[in-house]
Structures are given as structure tokens and as C-alpha cells.
């Protein structure tokens, strides 16, 4: 998972979903999740999948990025499905997991992180918002250092399979990464404190209900009606 790709999409991608407010998208995602968890109908699941794929296509979202994110929950759901030994229920379980993952990825890829983190932090103590915000920053600090370190290791050691030597090399990479990030984070935090973080500054919460939000709401109502009648 490349967080920079998702961040770039979330901030710079221009589409209709991007113009919807974060609370509306969260409500939509929760609604989809409720429909997924309560349906036992494979045709409805198929129709919901088509709708969600069409939504992504209409917003020109990259399929490869969303697909790779939805693949992991499907893989783990497949373990449960295989253990169950019933293909129909298995398909339902895998479909539920994949579509839930896809929906989460669509919301993340179309919402600026500050808005999303603000929404998550809103009902929690202020320190939680700071923690989320700072973790997100730290992800980028670590990401670029890790990429450089892994390139250096690959150039030095070449391609290799799993071995104790490789594990040792990776442990050194991780240890270096941890110490470097720890030092940088301390300094960055002091800097952000000087700018007001932790002194009453809350991660902003977008409360405005916009015109595209109504479209999301109508879609959810139509899907719920479909769920009821199937």
C-alpha cells in the first residue's frame, strides 16, 4: 500500500465524490456496510457491486489502486469461506468483505485526510485528533526513509529469498527507521506546538451539507429500497 498515492488522490483528484462532505460520505459508507451485513441475497450483492464499481468509474477513480486495497479483505474472507465449505455462503462472505473494503477505499481516496481525521476525532478527546494527525505525518516521514533504505539494501545485497541474513538486514533497516523517526518526530512535534497544536487547535470538522450530498443520500435510499424488496 502506497499511502502517498492515496493521499495524492484524496487531495488532488477532481471528481463529484470529492465535492461531497466528509460526514455525508461517512454516512453513505455506514449505510452500505449495514446493507452488506444484513443481506443474504447474492443477486443483491451483485447489484450492489455493480453500483459501487459504476460509482468509482463515474468518478474516474483508479481501479488498480482500489482493487488492490479490496483484495486483502477478500483474501482473508476466503479463508473463512473455504473453512465453511459452502460456496454460496462463501461467495456472500467474500463479497461482503471485498465490497466493504472497496467502499472504505473509495471514501479514503476522495476525502482530504484532514477532513476524514477531523471526523474521526470529533467525538473523542482533543489529544486523539492530534495523535491521528501526527501519525499521518509520521507515515510520510517513515515512508520516504524506508523507501531509500530498502533501495540501498537491494543495491547492496541484490535480490534474495527469505534467509536469516535477510532478516538481520531488515531488522537493521527497521531499527534505523525507528530511531530516525523518533528523533524527527520529537523535533516536528515541538515545531507544531509552537504553531498552536495542542493549545486549543482542533483538527477541523467539515459540517456543511452540500448539494452533491443529497445525491449520495438519494442513492442510499434507493439501495435500501432494493435491499428491502429483494
Amino acid at each position, binding site marked *: *500500500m502506497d499511502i502517498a498515492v492515496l493521499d495524492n488522490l484524496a487531495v488532488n483528484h477532481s471528481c463529484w465524490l470529492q465535492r461531497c462532505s466528509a460526514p455525508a460520505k461517512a454516512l453513505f459508507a455506514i449505510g452500505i*456496510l449495514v446493507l452488506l*451485513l444484513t443481506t*443474504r441475497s447474492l443477486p443483491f450483492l451483485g447489484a450492489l457491486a455493480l453500483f459501487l464499481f459504476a460509482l468509482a468509474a463515474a468518478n474516474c477513480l483508479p481501479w488498480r489502486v482500489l482493487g488492490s*486495497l479490496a483484495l*486483502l*479483505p*477478500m483474501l*482473508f474472507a476466503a*479463508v*473463512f469461506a*473455504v*473453512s*465453511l*465449505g*459452502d460456496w*454460496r*455462503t462463501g461467495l*456472500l*462472505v467474500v463479497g*461482503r*468483505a471485498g465490497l*466493504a*473494503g472497496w467502499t*472504505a477505499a473509495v*471514501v*479514503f481516496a476522495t476525502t482530504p485526510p484532514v477532513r*476524514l481525521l477531523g471526523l474521526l476525532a470529533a467525538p*473523542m*478527546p482533543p*489529544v*486523539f485528533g*492530534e*495523535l491521528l494527525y*501526527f*501519525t499521518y505525518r*509520521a*507515515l510520510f*516521514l*517513515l*515512508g520516504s526513509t*524506508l523507501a531509500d533504505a530498502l533501495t540501498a539494501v537491494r543495491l547492496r545485497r541484490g535480490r534474495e529469498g527469505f*534467509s536469516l541474513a535477510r*532478516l*538481520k538486514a*531488515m*531488522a537493521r*533497516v*527497521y*531499527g*534505523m*527507521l*525507528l*530511531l530516525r*523517526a523518533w528523533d524527527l*518526530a*520529537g523535533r*516536528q*512535534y515541538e515545531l507544531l506546538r509552537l504553531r498552536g497544536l*495542542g493549545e486549543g487547535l482542533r483538527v477541523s470538522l467539515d459540517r456543511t451539507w452540500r448539494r452533491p450530498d443529497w445525491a449520495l443520500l438519494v442513492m442510499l435510499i434507493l439501495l435500501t429500497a432494493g435491499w428491502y424488496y429483494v
Partner: protein
Amino acid sequence: MSHLHLPDGVLPWWLWLGALAATLVAVLAALKRLEGRRRMLPAVAVMAAASLAAANIPLGLPLHVNLAALAGIVLGPALGFLAVFVANVFNTLIGHGGLTVLGVNALLVGSEALAAGGLFRLLGGSRRLLLNTCLSVLAALLLSLALAAAVAGAAGVELEALASHVHNGRHAPAGAGEFWATFVAIMAPLAAVWLAVELALTLLIVGYVRKVRGGWLERG
């Protein structure tokens, strides 16, 4: 055992709802602790980010580590749990691990931070660094595996009931025991490799950190 990345729709509602409530209580308690020790905030954030970044370290195996036990050792049980929870929140946001099962996933992985952090301090901390790390991480990973196996058992009961509904009661249930046995047969080899790799990697990291910056773990 975060590698399970439990998806939505496999667990009974009472389990994921109960786990969400328990996680919320634990997180609020940890946040209260963090309020009083603000200087630890960047450390918790870095450990959460490092836990996510650890998933991108290529080991040459079809699995990744999360180093939650290391977070517990470095930050202590409460803040280590908080770091694991934040990492799980980000995983959930990108679809890795379901939204409803955020609590269960956080408790499963967080148990590693809680157990390793608590046991590490109980054994005397960094006085016998490698031995204490080894014992506390091993105990934490075994506890996490046992919890994951129990959750899989609960999932089996739920999925058998779902199968019965899907077939309008005509499905002859194989029994949760059979589900569990198949699940364990699939996951056990992966879990065994994961346990060995996670333990070895944690020990190697602790050894490396002690070598290049002696005393850092004691201060952490």
C-alpha cells in the same frame, strides 16, 4: 495476530459490538494517560506509523509483521495499545480490516502490546534485555494466537448460522468444530512461521537499537 485482518461480515454482532465497546474504554483510558504525558505523543504516533510501515518491509515471505509487542515494550502497555489502535484505524480507513471489527482487530493485536509491555516491566525491564524481550514477546504472541483462535471459533458458529439462513434451513451444518479444524489447518503453518519471524525480528531490532544507541530502550 494482525495478519488475520478480520473482514466485515464474519463475526456475530454481539462479539464485534462488545469488542468495540471494550476497545473504546481502553482507548479513552490510554488517552487520559497520554493527556498527562504530552511529550509521549510523538512517540506513540511514530510507533503507530512504524507498525504500519513494518507491513511494507519485504521479508521474502507471504506475510508481514506488525511489531505490536515491540510497541508495548518501548511505550509501555497502555500507550503501546493506543499506538496499535491508531495503526488499526488507518488500516480500517483503507479497507484493510473491517470497520465493524475494528474493536476485535484492535484487541487481538493490542493484546500483544499489553501483554509484552506488562510482562517486560514485570520481569525487570531492560536489566536482562534480550531474555526479557524474548520471554515477553513470546508470551504476547502466544496469547494473541489463542485469542485469534477463539475468535475464529465464534466466526464458525456465526457462519454456520448464516449458511443455514442462505439455504432456508436446508443446509446441513458441518458444525463449528469442523469449521474451526479446517480454519486452523489452513492458518496454523502461516501462524507458526509468523510467530518465529516476529519474535526473531523483534529480538534483532532490540539488539540493533541497543548496539547503536545504548540506553534508548530504558529511556523509552
